[in-house]
């Protein structure tokens, strides 16, 4: 009797069969530009999924429109390539209907923060247990390279030949302001980090938001190379780890200290005392997270990557289910005959 037969005979429910990356690859040709950062994000997702142990029929990937939003076609799971900006609302409908599903929203900087900005805010405040990956390439890729809401001021593109005028939005900051319960940032080119963040997002109960810096090698090549490439990465990023001091640098010789409400970079050596900021991703108050989010694209400060915030808060769908159950308890299971005959009736 082999193990699985034994299990059956003992009536132990069969564990979810172990899966591998291939199981999550659909039969569709992947159609991004060669070299696009989207490939890596897809791969990291497919690589980490087997570890999460979710049966693939329980997985739903929902996207809007954009290069990034092609993602669901490449996943051998349920998928919905919806319309521009609306994936969060569709995902809310999916999750509210069936809270058992593992729901993932795939979006771009234009999809989530331009046309979809409002749904993005409201998704976060509702805190359904959904995981959101925002592929931020700071450009509209699919429509051939116009500036996006995360593009830097002065960006010269087809639609802004004299430079764009709109100040960029910071996705992490916006997410925090909407009350997001899990907010993180990772990089297309840091495969291990990205995998670990995806995993943490999945494990978080509530809406988990991940901003992924993604290279669009066609329309915005190298936008993040300072943060992703070997030569510059260590000195220009700081990896947030809960309970750890904010230390960074190729030689890990720099740290971040609080100066009033301002961050200050200080050099450290083994002997120096450590009034460095200690990261607390579980802090109830988001002020620290805000403070860290502001260290984005400030030349003197390293870019934080990792989990800014991760707090527990009831999920919309759980409260909804709870209301349904309580209503059933107090009013009894819905009886259609009774309902139709409620109110003032008379017989003829």
């Amino acid at each position: 009797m082999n193990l699985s037969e034994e299990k059956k005979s003992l009536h132990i429910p069969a564990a979810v069969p172990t899966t591998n990356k291939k199981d999550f690859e659909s039969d569709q040709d992947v159609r991004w530009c060669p070299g696009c950062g989207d490939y890596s994000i897809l791969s990291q997702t497919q690589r980490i999924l087997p570890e999460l142990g979710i049966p693939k029929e329980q997985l739903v990937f929902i996207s809007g429109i954009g290069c990034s939003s092609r993602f669901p076609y490449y996943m051998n799971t349920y998928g919905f390539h919806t319309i521009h900006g609306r994936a969060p609302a569709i995902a809310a409908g999916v999750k509210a209907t069936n809270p058992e599903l593992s729901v993932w929203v795939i979006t771009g900087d234009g999809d989530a923060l331009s046309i979809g900005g409002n749904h993005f805010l409201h998704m976060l405040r509702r805190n359904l247990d959904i995981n959101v990956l925002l592929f931020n390439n700071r450009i509209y890729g699919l429509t051939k390279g116009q500036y996006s809401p995360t593009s830097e001021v002065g960006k010269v593109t087809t639609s802004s030949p004299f430079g764009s005028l709109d100040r960029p939005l910071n996705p992490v900051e916006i997410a925090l302001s909407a009350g997001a319960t899990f907010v993180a940032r990772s990089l297309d080119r840091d495969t291990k980090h990205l995998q670990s963040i995806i995993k943490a997002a999945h494990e978080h109960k509530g809406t988990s938001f991940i901003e992924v810096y993604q290279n669009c090698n066609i329309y915005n090549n190298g936008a993040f190379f300072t943060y992703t490439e070997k030569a510059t990465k260590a000195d220009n990023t700081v990896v947030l780890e809960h309970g750890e001091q904010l230390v960074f640098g190729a030689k890990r010789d720099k740290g971040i200290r609080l100066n009033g409400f301002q961050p200050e970079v200080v050099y450290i050596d083994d002997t120096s005392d450590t009034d460095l900021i200690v990261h607390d991703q579980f802090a109830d108050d988001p002020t620290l997270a805000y403070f860290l989010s502001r260290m984005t694209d400030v030349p003197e400060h390293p870019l934080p990557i990792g989990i800014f915030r991760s707090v527990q808060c009831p999920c919309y769908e759980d409260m909804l289910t709870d209301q349904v159950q309580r209503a059933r308890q107090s009013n009894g299971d819905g009886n259609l005959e009774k309902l139709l005959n409620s109110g003032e009736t008379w017989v003829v």
Partner: protein
Amino acid sequence: MNVCVKRKISVSIKVFGAFYEEGKELMKKQRQTIGDATILFAGDSGDGAQTVGAQLTHTSAIAGNDVSTLPDYPAEIRAPAGSLAGVSGFQLHFSSKEIHTPGDLSDVLVAFNPAALKISLSRLKPNGILILNLDNFGQRNLKLAGYNEDPLEGEIRNKYQVFPVELTRLTRDALVETNLSNKEKELCKNFFALGLVFWLYNRPMDYTLKWIESKFASKPKFIEANILALKGGYAYAEATEQIAVSYEVESAKFSRGTYRNVTGNLGTALGLIAAAQQADLQLVYGSYPITPASDILHELARYKNFGVKTLQMEDEIAAVCAAIGAAFSGALAATGTSGPGFALKGEAIGLAVMTELPLVVLNIQRAGPSTGMPTKTEQTDLLQALYGRNGESPIPVLAASRPSDCFDTVYEAAKIALKYMTPVVFLSDGYVANGAEPWLIPAVSDLPTISADFATDPDRFLPYQRDPETGRRPWAVPGTVGLEHRIGGLEKSDLTGDISYDPENHEKMSYLRAQKVANIANEIPRTDVFGSDSGDLLVIGWGGTYGALRTAVSNQRNAGASVSHLHLRFLNPLPNDLSSIIQNFERVMIAELNLGQLNKIVRSEYLVDTIAYNKIQGQPFQVTEVETKIEEVLTVEN
């Protein structure tokens, strides 16, 4: 000056009580039996016209009359007391025969203040009964209503039977032994007025007495007070010399069964719940508040014990998208709104067309364009429902014809959505939504079967393989083992549902989508023509004009005219037999509360030179104006 009127009548409630209880003996006044009556209560929002209107409605319905109502709320914002903008009206028509409209003009107008008089007088029949709250006819209120002179001094007394009543003072007097403040006492004056009307139409008070008891259970002092006011009004009417005649409206002949009053919005909510229950599905309703659709959200939100999930979303786009997500996940999904909100949903409805998901979209029409007149009724969204999306995106469209028809129509819409895997538009309008009438409650066992046919078999599963009869694609919901697949807004390959830019495939899919909707014509029962199957004139209508058209045609037929009435529930596809029916008539008139939308479709479809009869005033048709039009058309014809 009419002395009889301004003479102060001082009566104590004790006396009234005695009058009332011994009423049968004392009744010496004339009593007249009539076929029907129309009553209009009008006053400030705070005057409680809606409340007593509803009481009279229920009472009449329970007394066996057919009833039809027209509440008329003031424009959105609560206007200052006494102003024209703040007038709220409630019209009720009850009858010993089947009726279809709340009546054109009313037999009785109860005007709680000069503004109400100003707004509503034109809706009182010549020589009708006009009851006024004299206490509100001071200078200030007259001015607010825009009267330079006291209207009671003018022509009015020659044209109507005017009964000015010191409603406020009399109510205070009737309540003198309660320990309510004066202000609180005055709140009860609507029940005093209701008492008057109850006497006038010889209505039983039991229903209202019970209602008052349960309504004010938590404020017992108001139970007593309102009962005193009600009985006081009744007794006053009996006592005063002003009112000489009372009326009797006998029971109507109804089909046997249990009845309740239902507004269109309530019927719509119940119809959705019933469909979900019968199909054994969750009902998920995504919505964003908007007049006059909000009440459906409010109603549905109460039924969590039916597993109904209402999602109040951030806007109409999110609302329809949440519903699409729910449809994808296996719920009976619906979204509801009114015209401007419907305009916003167009793009997403297109997604539901492309992904072929079942979805019911409610559009409770109001007067447009743009914000228009939000509290007024209109039928101007038919073409929007048909064409308000990019690309060729065919959608079935159904319209409810009256409050009691909403249940069946939305139930049918849901059935079609599930059977054909398609979004369906359900049209109602402000008039139907807020109007109320008796509804013969269906037995659950009599409801048409609805089923949700989920795909479960992974063997040769193809997400866009169609059922040969209906043209539906399979409904494979997330969570089903082995049916993992991807859908989306890009054109799909036939059978596989993979993205396709192939020219022939696109053409094929476009025709398949169109054919699927066309197939629904097979669902439509034989079209019912009221009157003869052929003749001089066929009046075609749809939606909330049913009552006025049916009554007008019926009246005209009784007067010998060769006219029939056909009312469409299905606007897309049109019934298969419509073409042959039309051919049997000399002329076809299409009557709509718009500038001729169904008219365009019928002309294009059947190449028939229709007469377009349109009204676009934010108001329903009046029976008399329809009759006049029919006469005019038939005269020209001959």
